[in-house]
């Protein structure tokens, strides 16, 4: 019976997608809500049932739909298994997914293409479930690209505006670049282990030699895939532009679920990563670099969603750092907590934008705490969680990462950078908080009149998420408090012989104390700057020096443009106009020209005078004589 549940979980959102996809514009909203939110909710319930079954120690449940591609050694079938790791991801996806569905019933209320939006959301949930529940790499890849497709559709949802279409196209292409790396990685695995099913691959890998060169290359290729999907250093520019999509989309896809796919993939293949330490080191370094880099950009952003986008990139950097050093459970722990508070922050931002009737620039907001009390409180809880104040979830997961990174040999350098980044994170989060909710209102009169608290359907999810954001830390209490680390032992069966990094108790206490002090200091300083002195960030045009450089996101987009798109365009136009026309076509046409002129020339010898003709004959005979008697 439970294997049927495994099939039902992805099936329901698919059915929701198909039905609401076919409904035309006039279908009433309650029908669509019932259908789409209902399907996600039922999947949530089913995954909770599975979670409890797994909790009580049952073996992973799997269900084989059909055998998909059987060619030579490749035995691929569409089959799903739910084990500890995927059940957690299931909970996140369906849980937060459901909340966001409810949220968007309110947020997208007066949107003409209502049905289409919800069908895309359901399709996204379907592909995400596919990604998480697949029991071989190709099914994960199916989910992987499917999710990329949905993010393309959802980002470009308001397709009337061409800028949004470009952002959608950019997101899809960037993901595709990552997917190429993933594909090459899959071929390497197939080539080395002869199959793509997790089970066989990990059994074979577990007794392969460490530092085996192919496994390192596999890990690097898979990591490239993760880079594309989870927007790390080279391929992150699509995430900020992806904010062009409606806010629930940013919350669901670009905060909670899709971007964590890369981390899920690395945790799933932890066996390989433990076997190649230097791949792990590369992951850690990239993670740390992204964290720092994105955090600095976040400082100077003035669009509420852009700040949150860069904070997501930096938090993902944290997670990758954890995975790099081998602390897979900590990485997952941070994924869970981050999902809650980042979704919360995005939804609050959504309700702020909703209230400000579309205004996203924080410079023209301020003092909203009176008009939007619930949003204000929930946003404040989110900010506390993300910057790592003790009782909230962010504190536990971030400190655990800091502790684990510290223990990693040679990790001191990484540790310091991460510490600095957490300070910067706290700084820009509070900057955002003060500027939007404190000080006096800077918007125009129309917005002021329109300001009102969001309706029930928006605030309830906010409250729920705030509760989770606050309490999520409990599932992974550090040893200091001698409580069992619930998450670690739940994930134990999935993580195989990972390195044990236990921070000494004294170090943890020191860490907690220091982080408390620093955070208090940061809140005070930011309060002074943005509320007391009310220093409003200056308009983009007249930024100067470094801050100008940072405000424009280090000109990364322009750099990519100059490095890749421009030369590619130039090469193609050159090929199209010159090579195609003259070189290749030219050679072919030259044959035609050759025959034409050749025939015109030869034609001339038919002069028509008989004397010449007979002369020609005589010459012919003479040649024959010469040829026969003197040459041959």
């Amino acid at each position, binding site marked *: 019976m439970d294997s049927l549940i495994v099939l039902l979980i992805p099936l329901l959102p698919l059915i929701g997608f198909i039905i609401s996809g076919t409904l035309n514009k006039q279908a009433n909203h309650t029908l669509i809500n019932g259908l789409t939110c209902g399907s996600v909710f039922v999947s949530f319930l089913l995954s909770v049932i599975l979670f409890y079954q797994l909790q009580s120690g049952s073996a992973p449940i799997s269900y084989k739909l059909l055998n998909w591609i059987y060619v030579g050694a490749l035995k691929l079938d569409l089959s799903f298994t739910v084990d500890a790791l995927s059940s957690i991801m299931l909970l996140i996806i369906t849980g937060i997914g459901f909340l966001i569905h409810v949220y968007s019933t309110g947020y997208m209320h007066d949107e003409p293409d209502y049905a289409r939006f919800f069908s895309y959301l359901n399709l996204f949930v379907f592909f995400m479930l596919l990604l998480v529940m697949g029991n071989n790499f190709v099914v994960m890849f199916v989910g992987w690209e499917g999710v990329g497709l949905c993010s393309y559709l959802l980002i470009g949802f308001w397709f009337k505006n061409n800028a949004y279409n470009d952002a959608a196209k950019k997101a899809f292409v960037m993901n595709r670049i990552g997917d190429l790396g993933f594909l090459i990685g899959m071929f390497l695995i197939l080539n080395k282990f002869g199959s793509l099913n997790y089970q066989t691959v990990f059994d074979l890998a577990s007794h392969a030699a460490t530092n085996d060169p192919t496994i390192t290359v596999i890990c690097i290729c898979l990591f490239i895939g993760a880079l594309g999907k989870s927007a790390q250093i080279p391929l992150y520019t699509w995430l900020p532009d992806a904010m062009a999509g409606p806010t629930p989309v940013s919350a669901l896809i670009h905060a909670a679920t899709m971007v964590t796919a890369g981390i899920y993939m690395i945790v799933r293949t932890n066996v390989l990563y433990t076997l190649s330490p230097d791949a792990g080191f590369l992951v850690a370094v990239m993670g740390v670099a992204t964290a720092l880099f994105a955090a600095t950009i976040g400082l100077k952003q003035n669009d509420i969603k852009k700040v949150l986008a860069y904070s997501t990139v930096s938090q993902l950097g944290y997670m990758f750092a954890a995975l790099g050093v081998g602390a897979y459970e900590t990485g997952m722990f941070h994924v869970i907590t981050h999902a809650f508070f980042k979704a919360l922050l995005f939804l609050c931002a959504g309700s702020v934008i909703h209230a400000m009737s579309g205004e996203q620039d924080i410079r023209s907001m301020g003092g909203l705490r009176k008009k939007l009390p619930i949003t204000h409180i929930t946003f404040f809880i989110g900010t506390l969680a993300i910057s790592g104040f003790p009782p909230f979830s962010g504190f536990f997961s971030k400190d655990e990462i800091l502790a684990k990174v510290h223990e990693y040999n040679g990790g001191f350098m990484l540790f310091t950078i991460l510490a600095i980044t957490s300070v910067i994170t706290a700084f820009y989060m509070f900057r955002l908080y003060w500027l939007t909710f404190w000080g006096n209102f800077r918007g125009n009169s129309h917005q002021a009149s329109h300001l009102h608290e969001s309706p029930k359907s928006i605030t309830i999810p906010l409250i729920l998420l705030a509760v989770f954001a606050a309490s999520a830390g409990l599932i992974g209490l550090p040893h200091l408090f001698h409580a069992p680390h619930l998450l670690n032992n739940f994930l134990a069966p999935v993580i195989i012989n990972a390195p044990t990094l236990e921070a000494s108790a004294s170090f943890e206490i020191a860490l907690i104390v220091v982080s408390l002090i620093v955070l208090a200091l940061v809140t005070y300083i930011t309060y002074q700057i943005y509320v007391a002195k009310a220093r409003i960030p200056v308009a983009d045009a007249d930024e100067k020096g470094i801050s100008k450089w940072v405000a424009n996101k280090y000109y990364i987009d322009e750099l990519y443009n100059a490095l890749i798109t421009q030369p590619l365009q130039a090469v193609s136009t050159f090929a199209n106009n010159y090579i195609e026309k003259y070189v290749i076509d030219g050679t072919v046409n030259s044959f035609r020209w050759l025959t034409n002129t050749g025939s015109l020339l030869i*034609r001339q010898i*038919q*002069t*028509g*005078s*008989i*004397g010449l003709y*007979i002369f020609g004959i*005589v010459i012919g005979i003479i040649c024959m004589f010469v040829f026969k008697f003197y040459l041959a």
Partner: protein
Amino acid sequence: MNIISEVGINSYLWLAAILFSIGVMGVLFRRNAIIILMCIELMLNAVNILFVAFSVMHNNPAGQIMVFFIMAVAAAEVAVGLAILILMYRNMGSVDIDTMKKLKW
């Protein structure tokens, strides 16, 4: 006793060859159609000489019979040729072959 064995076939061969080449030269260099006609006849007669010489050398009559054939055919040929020349003269007013240059390329 036949004269050929005394004088030797080569001299006849040379004679015929020389006559033949004179005929060819005539056809090549002369412009007047009638002269060309006559040179062609010369060439045919050179061949006749050769035939007769060889037939006597092998003393088998076939060669001489061939000569008759050639003469008959040559006559027919000349008749037709002259008819065409008259036609040409009536149309072109001259017998010079260079006037006949319309069909070219």
